[in-house]
């Protein structure tokens, strides 16, 4: 097993490879792209949440001086696309709009102001059709249909229920019997709110058509190949006719994984033959690009008096809005949490409503599930009179257990993370009135997906690293560190190439905690292949067998006679005229074994009994990272995740009009992300139980930190003042209502869902 002391590059802090560009303001973002003759694009949002488009009159807009082109839905091929198998969406609606804000026309003009003026001149006549906004109501047979022809859509599997887009399920054991055998049954309903990803850089892209007719897209994206695929689908052109250039990414958090608005400037550029730029306003980001939508979670457990959980039933309703812009959740298993539960029935519904479509956000759905599961764990503990920490420890997954997906749990640091926070926050502890402690346990897996890397050795002894992943939160720096470690050269000797979809091999998106883990593994393997080739060449030149050679510090040497050897520079120069040619190491992989990630978190809060407001005084997280590739980047991920989680717990709340589904707070003045002043000092413990797979034993780190805060804080509020708030965010208003006893449980007709499945 790997131990951390042997590393020369990893486990040490490295400034980002792009630090200089970023700090000097010279990094180029999509909105910094200026091409000769470039036009500006603006979009017309729908004002209705469900309506037939009777007519769109673009004549006045088209006649405005400076306007070069106006397009509507019917200018695109009559093709539906989707984020996954289900194709439920036109890139621009042709006949029916499904949410307020849905773009129904786009204009390209000489400048942005003229484009906006033209947008204001477009007249759309709508004919309203019945709509539905509440997902629980939408599942009822009498409710309006968001997609009346859903069953005819490509990719629709089988009838799942009214307005239901997706249904995930997982079953094990004899659930009914286990509930009958249980000493205590605990049942709860939780609800979490809509959440905006809150990235800094609004969506932006520039489309250009090369003289050859190829389309070039400069975009702010986490998934250049996914944009390419999406564009190819909706424009009906081959992927080989499209080049996507990912620019610097000013934050994405899942919102920029797929095709967003790139098709509009693309078609406008194809029509006008001129480059077209679209930079969204913050309001457009809030009202047009998929956020996370509210989730309702029914959860029931059967528990023995000694704390053993023997049965779990969970029904989760994910509002997916108008379209399945992203899978509603990141896997059904999160209804179990990080625990061994022998009997379970888990259901997760994605339900259409007439509001903005759902998008991805930092492990979509898992934070919602964790809020429910980890609040429920505390509820169980109080019901059976057991310490909440002991209950978690008693039921925690251990090596050799079988996960929900059926994979065997490999060695991991779950127990160590629990022990670390127990010690650090000094649990259990009696606090002054209005103060409380709360815990949460988070589980996730390291992400896989197509990963590719190529390393070539330069004749000055440095290497060039080419991958298809766009840099996200410093992932380029971590990939460079992995390459450097595997090659035995310093960080400064790795040049990370800027890339696009023409140049780099196909790669999955930068998201889902997969870049450093999977892409990093590809880099490690490419580096190992590079080393092998360097050794082979050295063996040839030095006339010694390969196994007599070592490779260290940028040099291949004879192990018995260290002064005898060749540097990478010498080998690179020699390779030019060698039989094997220039040295390139490559690697490619798609799926990686199940490698879980666990984190334990603890909150200390103060509750104001007068206003109901909650202040987080301390927040501690311990996460099993395997190996810290670049510790300060790891800690940055953990800090950022917890900050987002605290926002989710206390202040962030994307609100929707109950009748029209329109976003009620489309601005950072009313969608409140936490500020430095609202946050405690960061307290992070890195647990390092090396993963059996993954580069040098590293696990994914990015996603789990954000899962815990809502539950840990809600549990701490309970500890402080004795009320359990089951709905997010834990606003002063909600907590005060609970303190005053006028807080209703969330209605949830679980019987109807069981009956629909034939379970009585």
């Amino acid at each position, binding site marked *: 097993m790997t131990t951390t002391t042997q590393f020369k590059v990893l486990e040490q802090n490295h400034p980002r490879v792009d630090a200089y560009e970023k700090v000097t303001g010279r990094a180029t973002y999509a909105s910094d792209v200026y091409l000769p003759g470039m036009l500006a694009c603006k979009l017309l949002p729908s004002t209705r949440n469900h309506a037939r488009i009777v007519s769109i009159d673009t004549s006045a807009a088209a006649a405005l001086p400076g306007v070069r082109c106006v397009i509507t839905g019917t200018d695109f091929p009559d093709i539906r696309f989707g984020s996954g198998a289900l194709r439920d969406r036109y890139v621009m609606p042709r006949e029916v709009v499904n949410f307020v804000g849905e773009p129904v026309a786009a204009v390209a003009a000489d*400048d942005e102001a003229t484009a906006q003026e033209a947008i204001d001149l477009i007249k759309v006549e709508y004919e309203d059709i019945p709509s539905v906004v509440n997902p629980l109501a939408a599942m009822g047979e009498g409710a309006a249909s968001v997609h009346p022809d859903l069953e005819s859509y490509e990719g629709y599997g089988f009838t799942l229920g009214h307005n239901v887009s997706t249904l995930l399920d997982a079953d094990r054991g004899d659930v009914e019997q286990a509930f009958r055998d249980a000493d205590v049954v605990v049942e709860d309903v939780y609800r979490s709110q809509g959440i905006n990803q809150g990235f800094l850089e609004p969506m932006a892209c520039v489309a250009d058509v090369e003289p050859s007719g190829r389309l070039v897209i400069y975009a702010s994206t986490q998934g250049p190949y996914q944009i390419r695929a999406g564009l190819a689908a909706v424009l009906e052109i081959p992927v080989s006719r499209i080049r996507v250039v990912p620019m610097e990414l000013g934050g994405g958090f899942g919102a920029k994984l797929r095709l967003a608005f790139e098709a509009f400037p693309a078609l406008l550029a194809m029509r006008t033959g001129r480059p077209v730029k679209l930079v969204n306003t913050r309001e457009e980001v809030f009202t047009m690009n998929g956020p996370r939508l509210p989730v309702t979670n029914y959860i029931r457990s059967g528990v023995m008096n000694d704390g053993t959980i023997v049965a779990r039933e969970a029904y989760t309703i994910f509002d997916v809005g108008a379209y399945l812009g992203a899978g509603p959740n990141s896997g059904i298993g999160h209804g179990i949490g990080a625990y061994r539960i022998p009997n379970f029935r888990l259901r997760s519904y994605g339900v259409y409503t007439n509001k903005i479509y759902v998008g991805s956000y930092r492990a979509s759905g898992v934070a919602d599930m964790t809020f429910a599961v980890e609040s429920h764990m505390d509820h169980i503990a109080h019901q059976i009179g057991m310490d909440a920490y002991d209950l978690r420890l008693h039921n925690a997954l251990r090596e050799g257990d079988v996960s929900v997906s059926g994979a065997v749990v490999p060695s991991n640091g779950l127990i160590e993370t629990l022990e670390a926070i127990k010690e650090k926050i000094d649990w259990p502890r009696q606090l002054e009135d209005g103060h409380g402690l709360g815990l949460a346990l988070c589980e996730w897996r390291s992400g896989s997906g197509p990963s590719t890397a190529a390393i070539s050795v330069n004749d000055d002894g440095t290497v060039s690293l080419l991958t298809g992943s766009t840099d996200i939160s410093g992932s380029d720096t971590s990939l460079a560190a992995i390459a450097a470690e595997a090659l035995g050269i310093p960080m400064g000797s790795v040049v990370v190439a800027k890339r696009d979809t023409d140049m780099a091999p196909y790669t999955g998106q930068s998201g889902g905690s997969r870049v450093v883990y999977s892409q990093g593994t590809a880099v490690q393997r490419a580096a190992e292949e590079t080393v092998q080739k360097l050794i082979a060449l050295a063996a040839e030149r030095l006339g010694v067998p390969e196994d007599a050679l070592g490779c260290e510090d940028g040099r291949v040497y004879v192990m018995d006679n260290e002064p005898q050897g060749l540097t990478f520079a010498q080998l690179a120069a020699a390779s030019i005229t060698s039989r094997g040619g220039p040295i390139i190491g490559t690697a490619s992989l798609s799926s990686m074994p199940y490698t879980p990630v666990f984190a334990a978190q603890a909150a200390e809060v103060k509750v104001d009994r007068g206003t109901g407001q*909650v202040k987080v005084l301390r927040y501690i997280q311990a996460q099993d990272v395997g190996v810290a590739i670049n510790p300060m980047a790891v800690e940055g991920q953990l800090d950022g995740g917890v900050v987002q989680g605290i926002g989710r717990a206390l*202040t962030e709340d994307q609100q929707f009009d109950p009748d029209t589904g329109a976003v009620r707070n489309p601005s950072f*003045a*009313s969608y*409140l992300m936490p*500020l430095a002043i*609202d946050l405690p000092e960061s307290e992070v413990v890195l647990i390092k139980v090396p993963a059996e797979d993954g580069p040098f034993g590293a696990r994914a780190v990015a996603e789990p930190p954000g899962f815990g805060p809502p539950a840990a804080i809600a549990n701490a509020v309970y500890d402080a003042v004795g009320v359990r708030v089951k709905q997010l965010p834990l606003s*002063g208003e909600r907590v005060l209502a609970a303190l005053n006893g006028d807080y209703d449980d969330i209605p949830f007709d679980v019987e109807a869902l069981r009956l629909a499945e034939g379970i009585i």
Partner: protein
Amino acid sequence: MARFDYLEPHSVDEALQMLAEHGDKTRLVAGSTDFLVRWRTGVWRPESVVCMQHVPGLDYINWNPDDGLSIGAMASVQDIELNTEVRSRYPALAAGATSFAGVQVRNLATVAGNICNASPAGDTLPALLAYNAQCRIIGPSGERSLPLDELFVGPGRTALAAGEILTEIRLPPPAPNTGGLYIKHSPRGAMDISAVGVASVVSLNDDGTCASARIALGSVAPTPLRAYGAEGRLVSQTPDAANIAEAARLASQSCNPIADVRSGADYRREMVRVLTERTLQHGVATAGDTPSFDDIRRLAVQTAW
């Protein structure tokens, strides 16, 4: 593109002339922090702006024991926050200023602009009301003076006539044994619009009874307003817990909040009660003292007591 001409007067007289000449097609701006937001969203689209930034001598904050505090029209909210006389003699106003936006906005925003913008949520307004502010106004037909209380007509609407400029705000010197505080209620510790704001200023007699109590409420009615009924309940009374609680209850009944994305109406009303109680208690406890600014700041913006 919505464009406007930029007019730059160098004296109040010149500004008055420009306003007279361009009438309702122009808009006076000071720090422009409200103006630019409304212009960008299309709410205000004047043909020109008359920018007061280069009128010299209007950014003063003066104090003397006879006249009290006078604040020039171009004094920024940051100037108020940093001013030592304000901190020691008008702590509720210092609290209003420090609770306001963030430093960058405070550096631009003027107190006069906060008044003339007449948002019920303006953070300096409850304290200014509670200190009995007087407005000095200059217009085409000369100069006049108006109690701040009479200036607010509705959300975004003031009693200023066309072409009039607010040139100075005056706060009378506080009576001896006075204490006060403003608390901004919002989910965030900075950069937020207050969901409720309450300022109380209490002056005590030598025997410990209330010589005067002034309570002003923000964000709970179409304009910031004084809670006169609650104030009356305290005058000549001992400001003990029961009387303060009763005054706080009356204050909460005197407002008329709406429900919006920030909070419900009932919650706002309840917050008026809680914050009135807290600001009064603090005012009584610190009457005659010079509170530390750190305390003022902490109490004004902290999200949980």
